[in-house]
Every structure is written in C-alpha cells, then in structure tokens.
C-alpha cells in the first residue's frame, strides 16, 4: 500500500489516490499526533499559515485496526521541490523551519527531521507539509536533526548565497543534501568570515568523521532557543546574490513594437475571459507579464521559467501586488526535473506535477525548436500532455527578425519549422479554435482545444 513518495518515517506514510492526498498516521505515532492536535500547537501553526491544514477522514474498519488516523491535507495545487526554488524562497523556508521549531518547543515538541522537502509553496508563501514531523522534546537531548539541517538546508543555502544560486538546482543530483566536508571545501573563502558558516558548516565538517563515542551533549531548551535565534539572525543577514540578467529585459529590449504587445495582450484577455480557466500554466513565463494577466481570470497560475533573475522579479511583483494565486517554478522545460529518489518516484517528475486547464506558450516555440533543436511534434506532444483542455501558442515564423537573428550564425536545418507544419503537428492532439495574426508582426496566436 505504501508509495515511494513517503517511506522513510515510521510515524506514517502518504499515498496519492484519485488526485487526493491521504496521510496515514501509525499507531506508534498516536501520542505525538494527539499532543500536536490537543496542545494548541497545530491550531497556532495553521492560524499563522505555517502548517498545512488537514481534516481527519472517516476510516474503514480495516483502517481503524491498522492506523491511528487517516488525514486529508488541504490540496496544494502544484508541489514544488527545493531544486525549483529561488535563493529567496530557500531563505524563506529556512527561517520558517526555525520559527516552527521555536514555536513547537513552547509546546514541548520539536521537528524530528530537517529536510527542505517538508516544505512546498502555495503562491508566494511556503508551507510546512509534513504534519507527522513533530516529536516530543526531551529536556537535555541533543538536536537530532542538526546534521540533516546543516547538510540539506543550511549547506545548500550557503552555497547558493556565498557561491552561486545555481547550487540549488544541483540538489536534484543529491536529494539528501551534500556532505559537510563537500560543502566546506566548495564554499568560497569569504564564508570563513561569517560566524554562522564557520560554526555550523566549516567546523562542523571537521567532526563528521569522528566517532562521538559516549559523548552526549546536553542541549537544554534555553540553549536550543538561543541556537535557533542565532541561526535565524545569521541566516537573515545572508544577502542573496542577483543572478545574471540575461532575460530580464526581454519585454523592454527584445519586443520591438508596443502595438504588437497591446494586440497580444488584448487577444489574451479576450481568450481568458471567454474560457475562464480554473488553472493556467505559463511556460517560459519570463518576468511574468502574462502570468500576472492570467491570474486575474484564473484560479491558479503556475509560472515556469528557467532564469532565476526573471523568477525573482516576478516574485517581487507578487509581493508588491499581494497576489497569492501564482506559484513560480524555476525549471528549464527542455530539461524538466525528473523523477528522483527510490524507484524514481520519491520526488515526482515536473511534467507529472504540471497539469493545467489552459497552457500558455507565448514566444516560446521558436526558442525550443531553433535554439534547442526540439522537433515541433515533440512540442505539440508535451503541451498536450500537460494541458487538460486548452493551449494558447504563439508561432513566430522564420521571417521574424528574432528568429532570423537566431539563425544568422548557423545553418538552417529546420525544414520542418513553418506554420503549416506547426498546424499539422498540433492538430494531432488539438482542434484549432481560433488564430489571430498579431499586429505589427508576422506572428500568430493560436488557440487550441484538446481532442
């Protein structure tokens, strides 16, 4: 019955069934779960928006015999993983983890593990999703999750902060975090001038191979609180670096005419108003100009973008406009994050998680086909796989100055890249509802309905 998405902890497990999530609480964890619920900790965390709310499901007689409870957590529209977050999102997660621990300690509990996979994002807010992570705190016991915290949370974040923000993506190659000596060796020298990095990463790394023997630290409640508050202060001071701004000026520099943008925007508004999609996926969202537009008409929007600087700008706009129905995913759609961990199914592949009623691919197809050599039929197949109903796709012909520029320095091997071929391949999966030649350009906007 268990699924690979959750198998490590014997407190319970999660199964995905019919688009719903069920969390089974084992009998061994009954006392901790009841304490979480009855102490007021659960309610305080949920009220603060830090922990995912759940309801207790009615159990069958068979379930009652085997489990303490079956929980149905509130549905998160699209789970995102740490390697799909920006550095700012990582910082938010780390600070929230320490905040939850501090709050839990007041109720005599503590988080027994420290993995960023216990968090996900709902819009711009991160939320703790592992309800069964709370354990009784025993006065004087060491912080069991300390090494895991340093290897899978603090260390990767330090590498993103002191070195380069691409380090977050490398976590997909090592989902349990990086070993401390590896982190210490790779951190830039300036990290040696930071007390938090020196203490918890560099010095800590020197002890990883030593045998603890009979030594046992006595980490009192007061010391733990002090440690977490020092960590919060230290991490809070770490400044996230701005990544390269290759695509951030796309709308300002690369878009030649305002008539083109105005007409495209008007067409999109018309389509979104007419279709009223519950969910929209904006592939190649850039700084989110059209994701923000879609958010006015759709319940949920997922903005997928490979450039961290663009995602950062979009997140700043979300915060400025207090929007909570756009979730960003930092990912390259040509190399989507695969299934990882046990049996390749512990962490689900990006394309399995992306499902939207309407998929937008605006000024994207030429990048995929010309710059990345993806055959146009592959693009049609991929969009059909993640769209539940509609696809809005912009086709940019070879005569367009942008495509001409992309082809200028190379041989044109893209015989299949033309509008007839585009329509032919998309017609395998979709029915054409409408096409519109966008003003002041040779570009066309196609609205497709899935067959």
């Amino acid at each position: 019955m268990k699924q690979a998405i959750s198998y490590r902890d014997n407190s319970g497990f999660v199964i995905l069934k019919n688009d719903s999530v069920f969390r089974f609480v084992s009998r061994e964890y009954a006392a901790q779960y009841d304490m979480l619920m009855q102490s007021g900790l659960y309610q305080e965390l949920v009220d603060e928006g830090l922990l995912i709310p759940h309801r207790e499901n009615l159990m069958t007689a068979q379930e009652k015999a085997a489990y303490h409870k079956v929980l149905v957590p509130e549905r998160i529209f699209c789970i995102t993983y740490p390697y799909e977050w920006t550095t700012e999102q990582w910082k938010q997660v780390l600070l929230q983890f320490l905040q939850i621990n501090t709050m839990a300690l007041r109720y005599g509990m503590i988080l027994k593990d420290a993995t960023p996979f216990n968090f996900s994002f709902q819009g711009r807010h991160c939320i703790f999703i592992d309800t069964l992570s709370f354990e009784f705190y025993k006065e004087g016991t060491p912080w069991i999750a300390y090494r895991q915290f340093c290897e899978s949370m603090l260390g990767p974040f330090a590498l993103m902060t002191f070195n380069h923000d691409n380090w977050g993506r490398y976590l997909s190659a090592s989902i349990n975090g990086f070993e401390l000596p590896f982190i210490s060796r790779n951190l830039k020298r300036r990290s040696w001038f930071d007390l938090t990095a020196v203490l918890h990463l560099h010095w800590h790394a020197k002890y990883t191979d030593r045998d603890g023997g009979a030594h046992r630290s006595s980490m009192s409640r007061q010391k733990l609180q002090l440690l977490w508050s020092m960590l919060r202060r230290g991490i809070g001071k770490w400044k996230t670096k701005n990544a390269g701004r290759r695509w951030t000026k796309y709308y300002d520099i690369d878009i030649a005419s305002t008539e083109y943008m105005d007409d495209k925007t008007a067409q999109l508004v018309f389509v979104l108003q007419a279709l009223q999609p519950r969910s929209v996926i904006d592939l190649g969202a850039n700084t989110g100009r059209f994701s923000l537009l879609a958010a006015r008409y759709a319940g949920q929007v997922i903005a997928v973008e490979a450039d961290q600087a663009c995602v950062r700008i979009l997140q700043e706009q979300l915060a400025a406009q207090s929007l909570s129905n756009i979730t960003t995913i930092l990912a390259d759609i040509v190399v989507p994050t695969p299934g990882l961990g046990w049996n390749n199914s512990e962490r689900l592949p990006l394309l399995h998680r992306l499902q939207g009623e309407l998929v937008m691919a605006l000024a994207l197809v030429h990048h995929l086909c010309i710059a990345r050599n993806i055959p146009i039929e592959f693009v049609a197949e991929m969009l059909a796989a993640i769209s539940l109903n509609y696809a809005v796709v912009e086709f940019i012909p070879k005569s367009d100055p942008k495509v001409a520029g992309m082809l200028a320095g190379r041989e044109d091997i893209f015989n299949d890249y033309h509008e007839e071929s585009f329509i032919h391949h998309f017609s395998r999966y979709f029915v054409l509802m409408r096409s519109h030649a966008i003003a002041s350009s040779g570009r066309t906007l196609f609205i497709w309905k899935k067959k």
Partner: protein
Amino acid sequence: MTIQNPLLYLDPGSGSLLFQVILSAMLTAAVFFKKSIHFFRHLFAGFRMYRHKKRAE
C-alpha cells in the same frame, strides 16, 4: 551511542553529536554572558534608582 526512541528514524551522526557537545559548551558560555549582562544591567539600574531616590529625598 544509541538514542532510546523508536520513532527516531534519522541517523544523527556520531560526529555531529560530538560537535554538539562543543556547541553546547559555547552556548553555555553565551547564556552565562547574556545572564551576566542582564544581572549587571539590573544591578546598575537599581543603584541608579537608589541614588535618584536619595537625591530626591
């Protein structure tokens, strides 16, 4: 060292536990330092209040 709790599914790492002994000692010093500052602040505040009261009399 074994942790007497069947629900702990994580290996805390013996080196990490050893490092926490050192960390704990540092935190003890920090707590002591913090408490000392708090104590002296209170002491001086009390002394200042006493002098202020004396002068007022």
